[in-house]
């Protein structure tokens, strides 16, 4: 399933906007920092291209909003997302005992998958699979765009 063009376009638009915003704020940074900023803005761009329709995107935006400097994510929706995530966490914590021992191969792998997908710990198994489907498609689109950008900018250097 190739990711459709509209998703890629949306992602690129958001990404460029985010990069521009970031480049206005910080002028000099080392390469690692720059890489982190690029990756972060790409992730946020991809998540916002989803427009809050999927849980992983909301979780990603909420995490980015809380952890990193907030200038990259500057919409009011991010606070709403973090609110939703927080309430979900509270609910989960209150009504389930966190069992870390994972018996069986499937359980173990489900746990790993939950750690991979942003916001995965809060989902039950059915929605986990659905979200991972969507996440894989979005990741593919992101990789495609980034790769083409890289190839366009690095050929013939």
């Amino acid at each position, binding site marked *: *399933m*190739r990711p*459709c*063009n*509209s998703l*890629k*376009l949306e992602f*690129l*638009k958001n990404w*460029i906007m985010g*990069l*521009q915003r*970031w*480049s*206005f704020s910080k002028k000099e940074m080392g*390469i*690692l920092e*720059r*890489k*982190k*900023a*690029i*990756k972060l803005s*790409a*992730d946020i761009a991809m998540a916002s291209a989803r427009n809050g329709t999927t849980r992983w995107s909301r979780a990603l935006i909420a995490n980015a909003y809380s952890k990193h400097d907030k200038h990259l994510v500057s919409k009011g929706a991010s606070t709403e997302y973090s609110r939703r995530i927080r309430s979900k966490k509270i609910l989960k914590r209150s009504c389930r005992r966190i069992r870390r021992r994972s018996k069986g*191969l*499937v359980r173990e*792998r*489900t746990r*790993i*998958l939950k750690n*991979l*997908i942003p916001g995965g710990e809060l989902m039950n*198994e*059915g929605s986990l*699979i*659905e979200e*991972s*489907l969507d*996440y*894989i*498609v979005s*990741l*593919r689109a*992101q*990789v*495609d765009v*980034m*790769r*083409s*950008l*890289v*190839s*366009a*900018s*690095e*050929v*013939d*250097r």
Partner: protein
Amino acid sequence: MELNAGAAGTGPHKTASERDEVAALESLQFTDEIRRLMSAPATDNASSFTALLELPAPQAVQLIHSPDSAKLTAAPAPAPNVDDFKGSFHYPFNSGLIERAARFSVFTGDGNINEDNKSNSPEPTSYNSSASLQKPVKSEPAETESSQPLVSDPTVENRRNKRKDREKVKGSTKKSKTAAKESSDDAEKLPYVHVRARRGQATDSHSLAERARREKINARMKLLQELVPGCGKISGMALVLDEIINHVQSLQRQVEFLSMRLAAVNPGIDFNLDSVFTAENGSLMDSNFPGMVMPMMWPEVQLNGNRQQYPPQLHFNALQQSVWGKEEVCNNYITPENSLLSYDSSGNSAPLHSNRLKMEL
């Protein structure tokens, strides 16, 4: 402010009375159906049906007189409700007991109800009405009188689903509490999820629900298997999950590497975008270039007010085509020039772009 307070004050009252009205209305519909059926001859198992009707009838008569009849005529009659009601049901004829039994069937799946299912009747059609009826039942279990016909609704649904199931099942009885439950879960998508018990499988409500869940999960896993390359042939959840995890991890790693590479193309990227965005406001859609309307995306990287005279810009549309992997670009801004241009591979036109980048550095 007083108005607001007054409105707020009357708000809850209004909703309470609205709720009562709704409940009464729905009970009315139901009783209307019962009455209609009472007049029409019952097809099979008339004895149990009329036996059941004995109780609701007097209460139905009671309820009829209370609200106005206009609602009665206006309300669309959910006929299939009562058709299903014809099914053999052997409830104890006491309102409290009926209510308790109904609730019991809804929430736990009683054995008694199963054994009473004997006859088959024509398939019911409108589940929507009963699905909507079920919700008031669950929210107002306290009211006995008005809810009594309502409370029978879940049992009606149980009947219906069980009957439908039984038509497919060879010989096993089943509970349909899961169907009722699924209806409330998936009410926005489907009115009912028909759970069919397979031959020789466990039929209590929990395992039915579990099986429905499993089927949903398996369907999604199949989609995932198609998505992830190389997963189609693997059988077994653990290995498929393995592949999925590997795929996600590899994609995430690729994003990291690519962002590192992009950071290494430095400081071209930010510079590019800076200059791009200063010029963005005016000239994205204008044909600054002779007879050219740029596609919206790559102009953000390529377009610059100062570079209008840069001749290879004509080729950048080609670049964009190739950059997108020669997929069809879905925006409408592509000019005829794009089609006229003969672009071949990214290797050919990408150097133009990099040249341009170099110029801007």
